[in-house]
C-alpha cells in the first residue's frame, strides 16, 4: 500500500496548531457545562501528555510507517478508547459526561493523534478535517464568546492552511506515477453494504422511519425514553414534561404544573403572581376585603368565581403578601408568555388606570374619562379603528406595534399611550371596540381577547420640548371630575415635600420631571419590599423607608404631583423590556413578570403623558428633534465614558504603547507568523521573506520606490545604518536567493542541494531578525525619490 509522501514537518506543526485550537475549544465547551472543571483539565492534560510521549517515542526510535501501519493505528485506537475508559471510571463513581461529549472527546483525541503521530500525509489532512468538524459542531452548540473567538481564529488559520496547501500543490511537480493510496476494494464493499442496508430499511419502514433510525446513530443525552442523570439540559423530554419555553403554549397536561381548568391568567392572577396576594385589610370596609383576597389553593378551586368577578381587577391593593422569589431570568421562568409584542422597546402598555387612592388601595372612580372620537377607516384594504385626538404640538410622530395574544385573559387591549389606530384582521365593525371608564380600549362583546389574536397598534409619542413649552398646565382637567378624586394623604406634609423638590422651578413640565427624577435617583427599587399589615398610608411608608416595588413609586409620584396641583393617575400595565427582546423572533415576550406600574400626568387636551418614576425602568419614548438626538447621544457618550473611564484610560494607554512600539510589535509578530504560519516550497519562503522585508521598510518609512531594484535599495539602506551595515551577509544571501526565486528559470529546489535548502530557512530567519523596521527607520536612504517615482507611486 502506497502511503503517499511523508508529511512535511512544517505542515505537521501547522496541523498540530489547528488540533490544539480544536482541543481548547472542545474542552472549554466541556468545562463550562461540566460538573467538575478539574476532571476536565486532568483528562485533557493526560491525553495530550500521552500523545506527545508516544510521538516522541516514534521519533526517537525512528519508527517508519510499515505496510500495515500497526504502531500508528495502535496509538490512534488507544486515544479513541481513552475517553471511554475515563467514563467507565467516573460513572462507576456516580458521575459522568453526556454521551455526545464523550463522542466529541474521542474525535478530538484521534484528530490530535493523527496530527502528532501521522502515518502519512493523508493523516494530516484527515486530522484537519476532523478538527474542522469538531470546531463547527461545538460552535453550533454554544454561545460562549470565548469559544466563538477561538473558532474565528481557527477559521482564519484553517483557511490560510488550505490556501497554502493549494499553492504547495501547484508548485510541486506532478507525480511521475499515479499510485492509488486509498484501497479501493474495502471502500467499494463498504459503500455497497451501506446501499443494501439502506434499501432494506427503506423497504421495511419507509423513508420517515429510515430517517428516524438514522437519528439513532448519533448518541444523545436527555431521557428520550429513560432518564439520564448525566444529561445536559433540554434535549428530549426526559422524566418530566415541562412546558416548552419557546412554543406559545403546550397542549395537554403538563407534569410541572397543577392541572388548571384554564391556563389563561387574568390580570388579577398576573398581579397576584407578580406582587403576591393582596393582604386582607384588618380595618373596616370588610365588604371590600371579602371581595378581594383569595389564597392560592382557593384561587385554583374557585377559578370560575375569580374569573367572573371582574370587579377584582379594577382595583389594586398596595398591601401585598409576597410568597416567592420574583424576577427570574427568562430561561428560568416556567410560565408561558401572556403575549408577544413586535416593535420598538422598551414600551409601556396600559391595561388599567386608577385615579382614586385611599392610602392603601387604588381604584377607579368610575367616572368616565373624556370621550375620544373614533371612526373606521380602510388603510391598504384593511379595516382600522382610527382614534381621533387633538394632539397639537405635544404628540408627534408615529410608532407601530403588533400584539400576539397568547395567554392573557383580559378584554382590555394592552396598548401604548396616545393610541391612534387599532387593527384586528377582519374586524370591520366599530362597535367591536369599546373604551372602559379609564379610557383603555377593549373588545366590546368579548369576555377576553381570544387566544392567538393579532392586534396591530399605531400610536404617537410626546415631545419633551413641546411639553416644556406648555407652561403651567395645571387646572386644565375638567373640574367636575377633580372633585371626585380622593386623596388620603395629608396634603400639607406631602405638599411641602413636593415643593422642596421643585423649588426654583416654574410650574409646568419641569416640576413633573423634577419629582420624577428625585424618585428615580433618591429611592431604591426593591421588588420584594412590602408595606406592613397595619400600614395606613403607603406613601408615607415609602417616603420613610426609601425603597419599595414599582407600585409604591407610582403611587408616591402620583400623590406628590397631585399635591402640587397636577392631575395624575396610576397606570397598571406591562413593561416590554428591551433586554427581553428576541432578535431571532423579532419580538418581545411579555409574561407575568412584566407587569408594571407607572404614573400618567394630564397636560391638557385630554392628553395623559406617562412618566416612569421607578429606577431601572426606562422612561417612555419621547419624540426628539435631531438636535436633541445628537445632544442625547453626546450626553450618553459622555456618561458612558465617565462610567468606563478606567477601561478607556487603560485602552488609551495601551493604544499609545502599541503605537510607540508598533515597529517592534510588527517585527516580532511578522517573525512569529513567518515561522509558524508558513509552509510550502523554499521558493515561496524566500518570496514571503522578501515581502515581509518590504512591509517592514514601508512601516519604517523607507518604502522602496517601484523603479528601484531590491539590491540597490536595501544595499543603500545598509550603507547608512551601523547595525544594518554589520549585517550585510544575510542581506546579500537573501538578495541572491530572491533573484533566483523571482527571476530564476526553474524551481529553486531543483538547483539547491538538500543541505542548502535547510540553510535557506536559517538565512531568511537571520535576515528577519536583524533587518527590523526600527533599524531601517534609522537608515538614511541615498536614493532621492524622483518625480517619476512619485508618479508611479501615486498611480
Amino acid at each position, binding site marked *: 500500500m502506497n502511503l503517499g509522501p511523508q508529511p512535511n514537518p512544517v505542515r505537521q506543526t501547522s496541523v498540530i496548531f489547528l488540533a490544539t485550537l480544536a482541543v481548547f475549544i472542545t474542552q472549554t465547551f466541556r468545562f463550562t457545562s461540566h460538573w467538575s472543571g478539574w476532571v476536565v483539565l486532568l483528562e485533557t492534560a493526560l491525553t495530550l501528555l500521552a500523545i506527545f510521549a508516544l510521538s516522541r517515542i516514534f521519533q526517537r526510535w525512528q519508527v517508519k510507517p510499515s505496510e500495515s501501519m500497526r504502531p500508528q493505528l495502535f496509538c490512534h485506537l488507544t486515544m479513541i478508547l481513552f475517553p471511554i475508559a475515563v467514563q467507565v471510571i467516573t460513572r462507576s463513581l456516580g458521575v459522568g459526561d453526556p454521551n455526545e461529549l464523550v463522542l466529541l472527546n474521542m474525535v478530538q483525541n484521534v484528530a490530535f493523534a493523527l496530527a502528532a503521530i501521522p502515518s502519512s500525509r493523508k493523516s494530516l489532512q484527515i486530522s484537519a478535517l476532523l478538527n474542522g468538524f469538531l470546531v463547527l459542531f461545538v460552535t453550533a452548540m454554544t454561545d460562549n464568546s470565548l469559544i466563538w473567538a477561538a473558532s474565528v481564529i481557527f477559521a482564519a488559520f484553517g483557511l490560510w492552511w488550505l490556501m497554502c496547501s493549494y499553492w504547495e500543490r501547484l508548485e510541486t511537480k506532478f507525480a511521475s506515477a499515479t499510485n492509488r493510496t486509498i484501497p479501493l476494494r474495502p471502500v467499494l464493499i463498504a459503500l455497497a453494504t451501506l446501499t443494501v442496508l439502506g434499501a432494506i430499511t427503506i423497504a421495511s419502514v419507509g423513508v420517515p422511519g429510515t430517517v428516524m433510525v438514522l437519528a439513532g446513530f448519533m448518541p444523545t443525552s436527555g431521557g428520550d425514553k429513560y432518564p439520564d442523570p448525566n444529561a445536559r439540559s433540554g434535549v428530549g423530554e426526559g422524566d418530566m414534561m415541562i412546558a416548552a419555553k419557546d412554543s406559545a403554549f403546550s397542549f395537554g397536561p403538563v407534569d410541572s404544573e397543577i392541572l388548571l381548568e384554564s391556563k389563561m391568567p387574568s390580570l388579577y392572577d398576573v398581579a397576584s403572581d407578580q406582587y403576591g396576594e393582596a393582604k386582607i385589610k384588618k380595618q373596616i370596609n370588610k365588604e371590600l376585603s371579602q371581595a378581594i383576597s383569595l389564597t392560592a389553593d382557593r384561587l385554583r378551586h374557585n377559578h370560575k368565581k375569580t374569573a367572573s368577578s371582574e370587579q377584582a381587577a379594577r382595583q389594586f391593593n398596595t398591601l401585598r403578601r409576597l410568597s416567592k422569589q420574583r424576577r427570574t431570568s427568562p430561561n428560568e421562568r416556567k410560565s408561558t408568555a401572556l403575549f408577544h409584542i413586535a416593535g420598538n422597546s422598551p414600551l409601556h402598555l396600559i391595561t388599567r388606570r386608577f385615579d382614586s387612592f385611599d392610602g392603601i388601595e387604588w381604584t377607579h372612580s368610575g367616572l368616565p374619562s373624556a370621550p375620544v372620537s373614533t371612526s373606521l377607516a380602510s388603510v391598504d384594504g384593511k379595516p382600522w379603528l382610527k382614534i381621533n385626538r387633538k394632539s397639537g404640538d405635544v404628540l408627534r410622530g408615529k410608532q407601530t406595534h403588533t400584539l400576539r395574544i397568547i395567554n392573557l385573559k383580559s378584554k382590555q387591549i394592552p396598548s401604548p399611550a396616545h393610541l391612534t389606530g387599532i387593527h384586528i384582521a377582519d374586524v370591520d365593525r366599530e362597535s367591536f371596540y369599546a373604551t372602559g371608564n379609564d379610557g383603555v380600549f377593549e373588545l366590546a362583546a368579548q369576555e377576553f381577547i381570544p387566544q392567538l389574536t393579532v392586534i396591530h397598534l399605531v400610536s404617537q409619542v410626546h415631545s419633551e420640548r413641546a411639553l416644556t413649552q406648555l407652561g403651567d398646565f395645571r387646572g386644565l382637567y375638567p373640574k367636575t371630575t377633580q372633585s371626585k378624586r380622593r386623596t388620603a394623604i395629608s396634603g400639607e406634609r406631602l405638599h411641602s415635600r413636593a415643593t422642596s423638590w421643585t423649588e426654583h422651578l416654574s410650574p409646568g413640565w419641569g416640576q413633573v420631571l423634577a419629582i420624577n427624577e428625585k424618585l428615580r435617583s433618591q429611592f431604591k427599587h426593591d421588588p420584594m419590599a412590602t408595606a406592613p399589615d397595619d400600614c395606613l398610608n403607603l406613601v408615607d411608608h415609602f417616603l420613610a423607608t426609601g425603597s419599595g416595588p414599582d407600585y409604591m413609586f407610582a403611587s408616591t409620584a402620583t400623590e406628590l404631583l397631585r399635591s402640587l396641583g397636577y392631575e395624575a393617575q396610576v397606570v397598571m400595565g406591562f413593561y416590554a423590556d428591551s433586554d427581553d427582546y428576541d432578535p431571532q423572533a423579532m419580538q418581545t415576550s411579555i409574561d407575568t413578570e412584566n407587569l408594571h406600574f407607572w404614573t400618567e400626568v394630564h397636560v391638557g387636551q385630554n392628553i395623559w403623558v406617562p412618566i416612569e418614576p421607578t429606577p431601572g425602568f426606562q422612561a417612555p419614548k419621547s419624540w426628539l428633534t435631531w438636535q436633541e438626538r445628537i445632544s442625547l447621544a453626546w450626553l450618553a457618550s459622555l456618561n458612558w465614558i465617565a462610567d468606563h473611564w478606567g477601561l478607556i484610560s487603560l485602552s488609551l494607554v495601551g493604544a499609545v504603547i502599541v503605537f510607540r512600539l508598533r515597529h517592534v510589535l510588527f517585527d516580532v509578530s511578522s517573525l512569529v507568523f513567518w515561522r509558524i504560519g508558513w509552509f510550502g516550497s523554499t521558493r515561496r519562503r524566500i518570496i514571503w521573506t522578501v515581502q515581509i522585508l518590504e512591509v517592514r521598510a514601508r512601516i519604517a518609512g523607507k518604502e522602496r520606490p517601484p523603479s528601484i531594484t531590491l*539590491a540597490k535599495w536595501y544595499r543603500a539602506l545598509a550603507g547608512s545604518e551601523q547595525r544594518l551595515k554589520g549585517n550585510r551577509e544575510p542581506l546579500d544571501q537573501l538578495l541572491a536567493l530572491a533573484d533566483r526565486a523571482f527571476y530564476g528559470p526553474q524551481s529553486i529546489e531543483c538547483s539547491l542541494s538538500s543541505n542548502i535548502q535547510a540553510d535557506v530557512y536559517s538565512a531568511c530567519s537571520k535576515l528577519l531578525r536583524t533587518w527590523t523596521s526600527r533599524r531601517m527607520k534609522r537608515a538614511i536612504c541615498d536614493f532621492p525619490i*524622483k518625480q517619476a517615482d512619485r508618479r508611479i507611486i501615486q498611480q
Partner: protein
Amino acid sequence: MTREQNTDTVITPACEHQQAIDRLRSRLNTSLLGKEDVVEMVLVCLLSRGHILFDDLPGLGKTTLAKAVALAVGGKFARVQCTPDLLPSDITGFNIFNQKTRAFEFMHGPVFSDVLLADEINRTTPRTQSALFEAMAERQVTIDNTRHKLSDSFFVVATQNPVEMHGAYPLPEAQLDRFAMKLRIGYPNRSDEMKMLATNIGEHDALTADDEPILDPSQLRQLQQHVAEVDVCEPVREYLVDLAAATRAHPDISLGLSPRGLIIWQRVAQAFAHLKGRDFVTPDDVQEVALPVLDVRMGGDLESSRRNVSEIIDSVTVPLLSTNNP
C-alpha cells in the same frame, strides 16, 4: 570591477570558461589601468557579439584596449584609420587580377580580422561607413556578387573624437543602432597614471610581455553561445519592453529604441548576468547596461544621456514576482 561574490547558499551554473574570463579580465585591466568598468563593458560586448563605439578623446587607450582584446582571444587584429579619402574597398577588400594565374584574386580587407579597430570613423565618408556597417550587421561582405563571410567572432571597436567635429561625417542614428554600446574611457586618475608611467619605463611596448591568447576563437564562440542561452524570464522581458516604450515616449529623445536595439539590450544584459555568475537575467542587469546601450542610440552629450536614461529607468516599475511558477 570584480566579479560579484556569490553566496554559499546559491550554487551558480557551472561555467567551464570562468577562469578564462577572469584571466581575460585581468589581462585587459593590465592593459588599461584603472578602468575596470570599461573593461567589464568591453567583455560584455565581446560575449554578446556586439560592437563598441568609443566616443572619446585621443590617447586614452582605445587602440591599446582593442589590441589587447584581439591578442587575448587569439584572433587577428586589424586597424583602419578612417580618413575622408578612405574607400569602401579599403575596408572590405577588393578583387585584383593576378597576372600569373590569370584570375582575379580577392584581397581581404581589414574586416576579415577578428578584432577591427576603426579609428575616427566619423571622418570617413558615409559610403565607406555604410560598407563597414554592412559588415558589422551581417558579418559578411559582398564584393562583385561574391559573398565573403567574416569571422564568427568579428568584433568592431570604432572610435570617434567628440572634440574635432569640423569636416566630420557624424554617424546617423540608423547606423549607430548597429553598435551595442557607446563607451567613454575618460582620463585615468592620478595613481593610475603614475602606475602607467612606471610600467612604461624601459619598455617600448607594454603588451609585448604578455601576449599569449587566453581564448581561441572557437572557445570564444562557445562562450558567446552560452551567453545567448542565459535565461530571460517573462517579467524581465516585459520590463525591457516597457523600458523601450518609455524611450519612445520620452519627450527629449527623438528616436526611441528600435527592436534591434532592444534585442541588443537583452543580449548585453545576458552577457552581464553571465559575467556575474548567474544563468538568468535580473532587472539589475538591465539597469546596469542601460546607459551604454541607450547612449549610442540617443545621441547628445553624456550628461543629457545620463539624465534621460535615469528618467526612463525611474519611470518603469521593476518586476518582482516571476510568473513562471505560480
